[in-house]
């Protein structure tokens, strides 16, 4: 038990913080209930997928600045395709497009040996332009079932569908990979690239695969944007910095090799519920961002302090 707590201390701490914030929300607004939780889960959808994608590339030792742009491309692609063809094939094409975009990012990084941050910064603009080429102005349409799939509860009142989708989609993709050779390679490469190479890990292929996974998660994020709004928007949303924030808050070490996906996902909910609390309290919007940033830094500092103290004991 204590070994479990030590290993997952950060994640447990985040879960407790989320619980505490939920209680605070209830205290401020006693009517905040399952419906509020449901709209919170829906708001978390695009952030959750962007964060999952970012977490994978950070674990492998990189960073992807093009996540928001890839979400814009896949979002408009979904809206354009679903206006013209059946929903399910469109869904498959969009997911494939995300995977391919991610693989291109990864391949460019590995083949050119230009740093991740430079390549993905360049690709941020490339994908942004691509989104505008696909759809110049917001428009298109999504299948009705896609919009319905994220609204309401399943199977019982109290469990939002959006939460199931986040857990289900990320779990189905990530859990088998994490337990496979590829998962081990991702952590090994992130932790020490040279050591991993000398131990026989195909470092290049592992990196490309990690970026591909990031693209796939971004496609899910783009689909959730389309499902939320019912249209496609070519201008990227605020998902890049938000995903980096959630990844750091979630206990993934920038530099790679450490952390998982559960922590960052809980962090996404923490950041969303903080915004809800600030809105409920009618805090001046210019102060809101300062409060959000301060809370984030404070939590990470407190967490690091607790971890180092625990390690020394």
């Amino acid at each position: 038990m204590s070994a479990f707590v030590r290993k997952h201390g950060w994640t447990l701490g985040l879960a407790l913080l989320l619980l505490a914030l939920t209680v605070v929300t209830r205290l401020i607004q006693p009517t905040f209930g399952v419906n509020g939780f449901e709209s919170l889960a829906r708001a978390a959808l695009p952030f959750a997928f962007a964060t999952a994608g970012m977490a994978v590339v950070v674990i492998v030792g990189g960073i992807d600045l093009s996540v928001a742009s890839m979400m814009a491309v896949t979002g408009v692609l979904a809206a354009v395709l679903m206006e013209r063809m059946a929903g399910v094939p469109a869904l498959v094409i969009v997911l494939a497009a995300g995977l391919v975009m991610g693989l291109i990012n990864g391949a460019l990084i590995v083949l050119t040996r230009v740093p991740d941050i430079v390549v993905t910064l360049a690709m941020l603009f490339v994908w942004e332009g691509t989104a505008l080429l696909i759809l110049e102005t917001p428009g298109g349409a999504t299948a009705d079932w896609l919009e319905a799939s994220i609204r309401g509860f399943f199977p019982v009142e109290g469990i939002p569908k959006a939460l199931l989708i986040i857990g289900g989609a990320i779990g189905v993709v990530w859990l088998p990979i994490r337990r496979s050779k590829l998962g081990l390679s991702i952590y090994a490469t992130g932790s020490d690239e040279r050591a991993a190479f000398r131990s026989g890990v195909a470092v290049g292929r592992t990196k490309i695969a990690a970026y591909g996974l990031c693209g796939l998660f971004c496609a899910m994020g783009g689909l959730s944007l389309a499902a939320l709004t019912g249209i496609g928007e070519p201008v990227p949303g605020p998902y890049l910095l938000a995903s980096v924030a959630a990844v750091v808050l979630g206990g993934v070490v920038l530099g790679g090799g450490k952390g998982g996906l559960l922590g960052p996902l809980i962090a996404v909910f923490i950041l969303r519920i903080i915004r809800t609390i600030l809105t409920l309290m009618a805090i001046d919007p210019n102060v809101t961002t300062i409060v959000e940033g301060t809370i984030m830094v404070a939590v990470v500092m407190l967490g690091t302090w607790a971890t180092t103290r625990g390690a020394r004991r």
Partner: protein
Amino acid sequence: MKKLLTGAAALAIAATLAPAGFAGSHKAYTIGVSNTVQGNGWREQMICAMRAQALVEGDVSNLIVAHRNTDSAGQLEDINNLIEAGVDAIVLNPSNPDALNSALESAMAQDIVVVAVDAGVTAEGAYVLSNNQEEYAYLGAKWLFEQLGGSGDVVYMRGIAGVSADTDRDNGFKRALEEYPGINVVHEVFTGWQQDQGKQQMFDFLATGIPFDGVWTSGIDNVIVDAFVESGAPLVPIVGADNAGFVQYLSEVEGLEGAAVTNPGSVGGAGIALAVDILNGEAPDSQTVLVDPVLWENTTEEGQATIAAAQNPNLDPEWPVSVTVPGWTDYTMEQIIACEGPGEG
């Protein structure tokens, strides 16, 4: 840790209960505001007009402002949060006419009044109060083309690709262009409604040496004049918006011929007034209220007099000069500059 959280919770409760107070005999409406562009003069004036109008409306006890840079999904989140906060009305500047329907419909299902300002929404039952953007572009473009005698090359500086106000203005601009076949667009560019970007783009184009006879710019205007003056290029007629800095230039810069088309950000204040009217059972007959623009030019004495009357040195140079919407807003110039609303903490 536990103590800290209890403390934080207590603090939070105190902070929310304090401003509720007692509203006396007045009705005590809480109005929520949602906006998705922060740091732009026009939008800041809109927010200040909303606060000032809420302050002078006796029936509004609290204004919750969700004001940040985000996309439609973020605005959906903000609107859902406002619904959770139990507001009586939501006044929003929509990021897109179609994208917000799920949240707006769920608000109206809970008898929350929805008023969209500046741009429309397609949700059934929502009220829309906006400046007529197509007319805005048409009016200014027509003046410019006539000023050039119906023929010449113009630079066309737009806003943000894909934003509906930009699309509407483009339609108005193209309508004027069709009426003047001798006019040719020599350069089309998106300023992103960013001052620095627009200025740089004008510098870059002046540096190419390609001749042109006029500029139509979508609200990024005083810096365009700056670019001409700083690079020493001869001034051409420029059409912009009624931003304070540009209007000042129209009366001060030697040799500048130009026109400002009004596009008051104070429609936000009118939106609050409309929401209160609807809450008090005085809904207008039509779901859509359009505010038509006016053109102020400096080439006639009459026009110069209008411009002189509109100026106020205390205004932020990036704010539109038209700070009120006659017939809708009740606040004073001082109140909108103070930018304080009721019940904000």
